[in-house]
Structure formats: C-alpha cells, structure tokens
C-alpha cells in the first residue's frame, strides 16, 4: 500500500510570455533583453503512494493545472525529475502502452470529448488500439465500463451533446477507466457541476477508488471537495507548494499563513452568519511575483526577512511540511 507510484522532484515549468519569433529576435540581438518568463510551477516536489489520493489546492494562477499536466505527461517539464514506480518518466511515457497507466479527467467534458464520435467510440477507441480488448468484443467491454460509471447501455450509440453535464463527466471518467489506469489525475473534475450532480460524481470517484485501488491526484480550488476526497493535501501559491500535510491535520491545524487565510475564506455553511474581516490584497501576477516569499505582501506575519529569502519546505512534524520563515515548529498554534 505504501509503495510509491509517482514522484516529482524539483519540478519546474516556465513559459515565455507574449513573444513572437520576430520579437524574440529583436530582443535577443538588438536590445539584449530576455523575453518575459512566467514560472508557472517552481521547484515542486511531491510523492504519491499506490492507492492514495493527493489533493492540490490553490487559487487561479497558482500553477495547479500546469502541475497536473506535467504529472499526466502531456506537458514536458522545464527542469526537474518525474518518476513513475521508480522509472524515469520520459522513458516510461515512450512505451505507449505503459503510458496508458496514467489517465486524466478534465474540467469541461464538452471540450475534452470529441463531439463527432459516439460514446462507444470515445470510450472504446484506446482500448482497442492498444490491444486491451479485441475489436469484436469491444461493445460488451464498453457497456461494462459505462455500467461502472452509472450510464445505461444505450449510451454507446449516442453523442456527447445528448448528455447532461454530469453524464458527460461520467463519459470522461469512463474514457479514462477504459484503459485500466493505475493513476488518475482529475483537474477540477467537479468544478462545473451543480451541487447535487457534484455529489454524484464525487461518490462515483469514491467507488472507483475503493474498487480498483486507483491512485489519484485531485486538483481543485474547492477546499470542501478536497477535504472530502483526499488523504493528503498540497497547498500551492504562485507556483510553489507552501504547505503539504495529511488532510485531517491540514484542516485541523494549518501552519502556513496562506493556508490559514484560505481556510478562513472558505464559505462555511451554518445558520449563524459570521461577520469577518477578510485579509486584504490581491493575488499578485505570476509574471512578476513578489521577491522572497511570494506571499509576503499579503501576509499578516511578514518580517524584513520575508522580502529577501525564499522559504524552503521544512518538516515541522512527520509528514507535515511548510514553507514559512516565521512559523516555527514549536509555535504551531498561534
């Protein structure tokens, strides 16, 4: 159970922003200027064990989707290491049939499902192509998988637009499951759904995890969903992981000031209205992040130190790391 399935070490990804080849040329040769670079993911290290669900939470621009895409292998890393069951990720991904072990479910099923294919083809295509199932038996195979995600057998002949949003997300999950993955990456997979439909999809994911022991990386901005589904949670801010801990521990005793602010801002359902003074300040542009600790302009505990020094992840309790210069292990609860 505690075997490691995936490991990321100092993973980074940068994008050159708003540049054209001509501008690159003039910048380089005539102005001696570097193009603007956006560090979407900045030295992120994390591990995922077999059968475990790791949540990644953060606000827009924190790099969680870029991280998801790198983990899924659909986006190369700028630097750093990725390992799948100990093997270097690039050589693993080159073996196409093995690469199927890693699958992804996207936020918007309307744009991730081919609108011109029937559901039977969407779900069965990869399994047939890679020889997981002979073409003659693919229909039964697909019907089986559709039943697992709670879709009727006659869905096979229908097109994505004939389904509701929740059903389409089930098709997206069925497509991922059809190739028998060991690791599933869900990028905001329930964000666009209504509350009651969202509950259905979350329950479906819980069932799948229980039945097949799938390892999952669950990316979301919704702390309620993360808390419900995940064993451990990584909190990201402007491309960096600022805290990573067991879910119960993170929600019970968050140590990083940003995590605390995020938990405070989370709307809680209760009959008692609370009057709170939310922490001020905007999320800075990832193009031009603040120096030192990225969070320092919004942080209530900021000191001079924070402007200059980049905080590294430190262990403050076994399995609980955070990147803050000021919160010491012994002063965990302020």
């Amino acid at each position, binding site marked *: 159970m505690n075997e490691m399935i995936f490991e990321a070490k100092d993973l980074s990804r940068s994008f050159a922003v708003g540049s054209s080849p001509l501008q690159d040329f003039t910048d380089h040769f005539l102005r001696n200027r570097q193009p603007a670079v956006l560090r979407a993911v900045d030295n992120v290290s994390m591990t995922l064990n077999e059968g475990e669900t790791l949540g990644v939470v953060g*606000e*827009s621009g924190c790099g969680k989707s870029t991280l998801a895409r790198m983990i899924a292998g659909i986006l190369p890393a700028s630097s750093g290491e990725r390992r799948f069951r100990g093997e270097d990720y690039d050589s693993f991904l080159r073996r196409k049939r093995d690469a199927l072990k890693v699958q992804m479910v996207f936020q918007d099923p309307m744009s991730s499902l081919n609108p011109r294919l029937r559901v039977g083809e969407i779900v069965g295509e990869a399994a047939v192509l890679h020889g997981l199932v002979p073409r003659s038996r693919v229909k039964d195979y697909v019907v089986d998988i559709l039943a697992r995600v709670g879709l009727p057998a006659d869905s096979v002949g229908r097109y994505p637009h004939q389904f*509701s*949003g*929740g059903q389409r997300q089930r098709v997206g999950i069925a497509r991922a499951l059809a190739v028998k993955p060991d690791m599933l990456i869900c990028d905001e997979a329930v964000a666009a759904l*209504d*509350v*009651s*439909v*969202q*509950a*259905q999809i*979350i*329950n479906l994911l*819980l*069932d799948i995890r229980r039945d097949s022991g799938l390892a999952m990386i669950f990316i979301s*901005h*919704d*702390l*309620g*969903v993360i*808390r*419900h*589904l995940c064993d451990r949670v990584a909190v990201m801010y402007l491309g960096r992981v600022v805290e990573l801990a067991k*879910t*119960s521990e993170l929600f019970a005793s968050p140590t990083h000031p940003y995590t605390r*602010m*995020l938990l*405070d*801002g*989370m*709307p*809680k*359902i*209760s*009959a*008692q*209205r*609370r*009057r*709170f*003074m*939310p*922490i*001020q300040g*905007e*999320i800075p542009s990832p193009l031009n992040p603040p120096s030192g600790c990225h969070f320092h302009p919004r942080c209530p505990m900021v000191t001079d130190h924070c402007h200059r020094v980049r905080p590294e992840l430190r262990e403050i309790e076994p399995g609980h790391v955070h990147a803050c210069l000021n919160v010491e292990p012994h002063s965990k609860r302020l």
Partner: protein
Amino acid sequence: MSDTFFFKVDGLNTWFFTRKGTIKSVRDISFEVARGEVLGIVGESGSGKSVTGMSIMGQIDEPGRIVSGSISLDGQELTGLDFEEMRHYRGNRIAMVFQNPLMTLNPLMRVRDQMYEAISAHESVPRKEMYDRCIEALRSVGIPSPEERLNAYPHEMSGGMRQRVVIAIALLLGPDLIIADEPTTALDVTIQAQIIYQIRRQIDERGLGMIWITHDLSTLSELADRIMVMYAGAMMEIGTTEEIIGAARHPYTRKLLESVPSRNAPGEKLKQIPGNMPSLLTLGEGCPFANRCERMTDICRQPVQARQLSETHRIWCYHPFED
C-alpha cells in the same frame, strides 16, 4: 412588517414559447425584499433563478415573455412598462450584476468613461461631480488607489477588480435594489470573501435591497438574511437563513444541504439526490421534485399550495419534515 417590503414579486410566470413546446421557466413565484436586506435565491441549473432576475429587469426576449404576475417597486407596477419607461428604472432604481464582468464591461472603454456613461444616461451632472462620485463608488467596494483605476481598461485588471468595478457601477446611481446573478462564482475564495464583506457593508450602510442569485448555499449562509429555494421553475421553500440552513423542512432543501461535502464526514459517500431534474417541457401539475423525492405519494401529483410555517417561513410540500 409588511410595509418595510419596498419590492414585491407576486405570482410571476415567465414562459418561453419554443417550437418544441412551452417551457415554463418560472411558475408562480412570489417574494418580497426589504430595505437593508439580502434575499438569496438558490437553485441548480434550470431552476429558473436567473430567469427570475431577468424578468425583474424587463429583459425577457422573444420567444419568452412574462405571462402573468406582478413586479412592483415602491408600489409602482413594472411589468406593463414599455422599453422607454423601463429605462428609467433599469440601472437607476434597479441595477444588475452578472457573473462574468468581462461580458458586462466594454473592453474598448476606460473604466472612467463607462462610469460616466452610466451617470449621464440618467442625470446631468458636472464632470467634477461625476469624477468625485466615481472615486467614491470605487473606494466603497474596496478598490485601492481608485484615481489610477479610473483610467484603466478592463483587461488591465484582475477578475476580482473587474467584478468590483461592475459592482461600483451598479452602486453609482444609488439604486434601491441590486440583483446579483452569481457575482462571485468565478472568483477565488479569498477574493470572494473580500467582495462579500464589502457588499454586506454597502447594504447595511445604504439600506438598499439585494437579490443574490447563486447555486452556492454556503455563500448564502454567510451573506443572506433570507433564502428562497427554487427547483425546476417553482418555489420550494422560503425563510430566514436560520430557518433554511438550520431547520429546513422541504425534502429538496434537506437533500441539497446534505449533498454539500462539508456536511458529510470526510471520505464517506455523500448523500446524493437520485435522478435528474425533469424536463421543463413535460412538467405535470404537481410538485416538480416528486419523482426524486423519497416522501412522494399520489397526492404530490396535485398542484401544491403554499403552507405558512411561521411569519417568515413558507413551504410548498405535502409531506414536509416535522421539526
């Protein structure tokens, strides 16, 4: 109590006449809003909550129309007004904020010009005074250095800032009522918390009424004074926030509350509502939730009458939970 309600909707029916049949998006909706109050309307997609908002603004286009019912502001009936007459109310007395600020704001105009335009559409005011009012409005929604922001274009601002600008424009003419349709849904949690805090302050200070339309019960539980629950175009339950969140009696409201992750033990299966929302084309006479409801009996096929549970708490159900 009833005379504090300055805004009333009574028996509103908004239907769309399409080739496939009549879609009764809003059926028999009645509610009131008092000054200094936030009324939350909660519902899932297709519940008719947005159509209710659009009906109030007089923005229902062909093939839809308001079939019957009354919408009144300070005793003045709004439903029969023609375009020019409605214009006097829209923006001036009733303002609306939508989910996506990029669709509301003109990308080619500076914030200043968009704000000036809103003022001069209704009043003739010297430029200096317009400037002061804009600065004041921007500051009241928590925009730092409003003098600079006034000269910015929408694309130069973050999503949260843009939505604040839209709210500032809505406040500009001192409306009596603001209708906000999912205004913070697209925003990050920390930004959402800031905006909700500022909106609540403006409501309390200016004593204006607000209708906050959303699918998110958690946000409403923190902001709203009263909550109205809609399903498939009909009202299910209305009451104070305490009555709805703390002591809901309608099976649908209960189910909705139970399916929120934070109300379930982590890792446990969420309590889910079986089935899907019925098609609005084929709705019968009875309770639209009946088919998904575990308390359903034959009588649920009959039209449901409102039942008054307390002065503020009303419910449409034959088999409510007893508490």
